[in-house]
């Protein structure tokens, strides 16, 4: 079935080679990082996790969002999602791949990564994060490939796939909960030490992930004969709406607790993010942009006239996606380290090599996604699928 990715027009191959070029540049930057060290990034003694881990945190959410297609279709027989569940699963595969790559490029000694397997430490959340991410990758690969293969042959998928699909539902929730636990159990970081961290993560994931999926469906509709169907898109858009409302609501809950309790340690990170601390205002414009985009996105999505308008919908979704990306990536990860344990401020911003490596990893994800989607589209266009 993979050979279907080898047949494409000029537009397809231009895109593939463009991605390969970007990956090449990112790879060269990574070689430099391997030899000179992570000092070529913007990381410091105070802000020891930055852009790479921010992308990882955000993309785990996008990966988990495949469950928003699986639950309605497989658990509640919502047939409208039948054609596009595979796109959600393939997006999950590309996202989890990028997550693992971001962790790898962030490591100081990546050649020692197998130490996590050789010396498993059950009390470390990071071990469980590795377990659930790899598990989710395998589940989606097996489920996606098998169901697509069955569609290609025009037969229903084999019975053993069903339990795996059911497993993927709690597993998707678990990958993001475990990732939230990386942050939510650390005693010294007040921005992260909140019970609502996992819930916030999931809400943000279920907003950003399906938003990206809808946009991908629209792109697929433009470049191929495969149409997800406007009903499916509208259902997904409603999911994005509710999830984003929950996400913003949870964030406002955090703001209330921090500000009303007046505990300085609790309020300081949020003050830094939105107003700056001691004259340091590096993230302020980003956070307010995210806030504006979030409300504009919600406004456009809640209003059925603008949501149903497929000319306006993409912009609402992009607004939601970028807002979630800023908030969960830069805002959350970097904000957790500011102020530092001594209550002083050391700011962080990514450097050019760091951005090059990041874009390179995104290009790898885009390549995986492109190849997998090409295969899925080819099967759908052949029209052999049963029951969709």
């Amino acid at each position: 079935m993979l050979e279907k990715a080898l047949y494409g027009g000029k537009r397809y191959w231009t895109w593939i080679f463009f991605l390969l070029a970007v990956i090449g540049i990112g790879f060269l930057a990574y070689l430099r990082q391997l030899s000179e060290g992570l000092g070529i990034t913007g990381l410091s003694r105070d802000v020891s996790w930055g852009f790479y881990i921010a992308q990882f945190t955000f993309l785990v959410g996008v990966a988990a969002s495949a469950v928003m297609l699986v639950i309605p279709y497989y658990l509640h027989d919502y047939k409208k999602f039948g054609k596009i569940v595979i796109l959600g699963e393939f997006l999950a595969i590309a996202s989890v791949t990028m997550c693992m790559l971001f962790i790898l490029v962030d490591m100081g000694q990546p050649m020692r990564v197998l130490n996590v397997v050789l010396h498993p430490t059950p009390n470390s959340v990071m071990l469980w994060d590795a377990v659930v991410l790899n598990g989710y990758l395998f589940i989606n690969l097996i489920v996606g490939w098998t169901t697509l293969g069955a569609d290609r042959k025009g037969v229903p998928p084999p019975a053993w796939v069903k339990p795996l699909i059911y497993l993927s539902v709690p597993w998707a929730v678990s990958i993001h909960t475990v990732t939230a636990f990386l942050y939510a159990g650390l005693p010294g970081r007040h921005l992260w030490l909140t019970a609502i961290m996992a819930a916030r993560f999931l809400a943000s994931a279920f907003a950003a992930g399906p938003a990206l999926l809808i946009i991908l469906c629209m792109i697929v509709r433009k470049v191929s004969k495969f149409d997800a169907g406007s009903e499916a898109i509208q259902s997904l858009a409603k999911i994005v709406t509710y999830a984003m409302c929950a996400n913003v609501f949870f964030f406002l809950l955090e703001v209330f607790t921090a500000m009303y309790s007046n505990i300085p340690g609790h309020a300081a990170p949020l003050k830094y993010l939105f107003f700056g601390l001691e004259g340091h205002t590096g993230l302020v414009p980003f956070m307010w942009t995210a806030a504006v985009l979030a409300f504009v996105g919600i406004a456009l999505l809640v209003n059925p006239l603008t949501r149903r308008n497929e000319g306006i919908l993409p912009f609402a979704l992009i607004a939601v996606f970028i807002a979630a990306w800023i908030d969960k990536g830069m805002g959350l990860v970097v904000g957790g380290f500011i102020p530092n344990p001594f209550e002083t401020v050391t700011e962080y911003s990514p450097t050019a090599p760091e951005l090059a490596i990041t874009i390179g990893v995104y290009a790898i994800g885009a390549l995986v996604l492109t190849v997998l989607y090409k295969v899925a589209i080819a099967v759908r266009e052949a029209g052999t699928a049963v029951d969709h």
Partner: protein
Amino acid sequence: MSINRRQFLKLAGASTVLGLGGATVLNGLKREGLEASQISPDPRALNAKRWGLVIDVSKLKTDEDYQRCIDACHNIHNVPDHGNKKDEVKWIWKDNYEHTFPTTTEDEFMNHEYKEKNFLLLCNHCAQPACVRVCPTKATFKRKDGIVMQDMHRCIGCRFCMAACPFGARSFNYRDPRPKIKIENKAFPTRMIGVVEKCTLCYERIAIGEPPKCAEVSNGAIVFGDLEDPNSEIRKIMAEKFTIRRKPELGTFPSIYYVIGGKENA
């Protein structure tokens, strides 16, 4: 016999897995390793149930007093000086009251002398360390004598411990440290890029019967001893004077105590 491609692939796959798996199991069962009787501690080694320090900053009067402790530690341990705050590596350093005890918050009515006073900060070798809790490879681990140790060979450089430490005690080697080591101690290794490092309570000196270097050069400002030995000098000091620890409310139970008091404690 006729065999189709699918059956062949299944057979090849199963054979490979069994072959590799079997080889691994047999390898693991092979008896190797040193006999327990061959390895033993140095007879000079100091032993304790829980090592700790008491730091009386009233005995550190000049900037030079602080710097002597810092330089002594950094010199014998080949700690690099990168010259900038971003790549900074430090095992022990000085900072003022507000930064050492930030959760006690700004207090404008506080004793002026203590407000201006500097403290010496280092890894607290906590009894329930957050960093050990999160390390995925046990590269940082708690020894039986209480020292929170760092295994530079195993560290994968994920920096989870740095995120977890509430005291900012850990540094990462963002760049190659060797060019920036001012004075090399040939008896102690350096580190390489990509690993986390911190104060290890001079485990290599304790192993041959000597106290931590900072305590040795502090002229009595830093006292080293076994917190669980009621007859130790450190416990005697703590029985007479009021001591505090950094961020005790976080539940890590630090082992570094700071003597607090006015002029009568000098």
